[in-house]
């Protein structure tokens, strides 16, 4: 149906689905989502091998790492250069479903057929589980990592805190990423209102086109940033 509508580009979050689509619909251009968890040169080569045309990497990957990654030919590389980095890596978090997981009704295969009477026999509506964002798009993140915690050490309450998270805004490194061979710069804009998203895009556009110094461009959307709650202390 997507091909009939003229859609050729699909972003996918599951390795199995990605490979199945690649084999069945070779005309699709498939992107391995950031939720696929690629971070290394070997990960990118793997996704190329299984049929991805592009892969999205998190903005935690540096230009130096990217130079090595771009030695992999035959796949485009996108980087989420402006994003919120939560404590747990994208695609590697099941904390929400540890706390809360409820079955919810499956949507009808065809909206005009809510009871599923005309659906193929093996896809009758039923119940599906919620869970993490990896569960085929039915997941839900209710940001439990952003709730305050009490930290107990050997049974003693030692602190109350949040999991660390930070805003990654690597506008100052746009040129470095371009020189490293990145094909696409990606901004995490899904949760931003238009009034914040527009200046954010304008700022990066100027930085890419060389029409503004990185500092000037950064100031244009400073209000779209979250306060840095922590310092990177190594890995």
């Amino acid at each position, binding site marked *: 149906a997507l091909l009939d509508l003229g859609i050729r580009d699909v972003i996918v979050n*599951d*390795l*199995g*689905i990605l*490979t*199945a689509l690649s084999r069945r619909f070779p005309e699709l251009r498939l992107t391995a989502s950031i939720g*696929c*968890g*690629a*971070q*290394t*040169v*070997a*990960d990118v*080569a*793997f*996704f190329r*091998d*299984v049929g991805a045309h592009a892969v999205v990497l998190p903005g*935690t990957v540096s230009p130096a*790492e990217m130079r*090595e*990654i771009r030695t992999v030919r035959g796949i485009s590389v996108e980087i989420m250069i402006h994003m919120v980095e939560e*404590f*747990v*890596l994208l*695609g*590697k*978090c*099941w*904390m929400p*479903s*540890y*706390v*809360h*997981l*409820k*079955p919810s009704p499956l949507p009808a295969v065809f909206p005009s057929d809510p009871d599923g009477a005309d659906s193929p026999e093996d896809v009758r509506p039923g119940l599906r*589980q919620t*869970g993490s964002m*990896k*569960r*085929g798009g039915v997941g839900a993140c209710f940001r*439990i990592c952003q*709730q*305050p915690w*009490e*930290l*107990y*050490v*050997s*049974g003693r309450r*030692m602190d109350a805190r949040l*999991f*660390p998270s930070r805003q990654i805004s690597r506008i100052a490194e746009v040129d470095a990423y371009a020189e490293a061979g990145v094909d696409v710069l990606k901004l995490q804009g899904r949760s931003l209102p238009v009034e914040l998203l527009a200046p954010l895009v304008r700022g990066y556009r100027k930085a890419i086109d060389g029409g503004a110094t990185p500092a000037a461009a950064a100031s244009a959307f400073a209000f779209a940033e979250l306060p840095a709650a*922590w310092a*990177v*202390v*190594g*890995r």
Partner: protein
Amino acid sequence: MNREPEAMNRFELNTTIANLRDLRVSDLRDYDAVYLGDIYCRIYEANFLEQLGDLREGIRIVQDQGKRAYVTTYAAPRNDFLPRVRKMLETAVEAGAHAVEIHNLGILKIAHEEFPQLPVHIGGFANVYTAAGVEVLRDFGAVRFTPNYELSLEEIDEITRGCGAPVELLVHGKMPLGISDYCFLLEYEEKWGIKCPDLCQKELFLKQGDWAMKSVGKGILSGKDVCMLEHLPRLLAEGHRHFRIETVSETPAYRREVAAVYRAALDRAAAGESALEEGWWETLARHARIGLCNGFYFGKSGMDYAGIRPESIGSLLTISRVES
């Protein structure tokens, strides 16, 4: 499952040990196999994955006891991990490791292309959610699969029914819930006067309201211990034969005593008996600091317990919630 089931009494009970010190003080009599290494952190104390002389010695110790020695690998590597991963795999092959556990797809590609003689077990962080995913990973040499921890037994059965893939299930211990690139415990080095790598050796729980999780620095685990003791007959009847007791962050006493319970219970279940000893519960409850849960196996939230033991609570923090 559709595949021809192996005899009920031919099962594997395995666990994880991160370093040589822990291995030397661990009584492995009730285990059939051991995964060597810590998947979360390169600077975990004397991690087998970095100390390759220790790894060689660890493989020897495990095999001298008649057990299978597996090595594990990092769950979230970066480029600069990969040269060491290659050396570790080379060492594992030379030392005769029986298999490698892989959570990361790039490492899977390296293992498949450069160390094809090493059978691959797919770990829980590899995100096996679908039968299609299993098929892809098989093409890269995988012979055993730990499905994502979020999947229910019903969903796991759906995946395995068509392809007959051997599955490994966590039957007891703290279930991985996430992994980070960073260790927030390092922020406490000065404040607590405890340096890395001793920090994550402490018993660290993060608590909010009526639920809790365990921190191992870069890794987040369930606060409660997954416990499938009551359900072993079902697991065997459904064709499962590979069972893990996760003890990477536990004491040698936990490793030994919990394994003794499960070995006895599995032997009994394989013989067609389902009675459980009261003493077994006492052992499990004593070691479960927050309490017991079933993980996601019954389609409920990971911290719920669906069984006849709703009173199973831990010794550290009283958690009253039983089912959502």
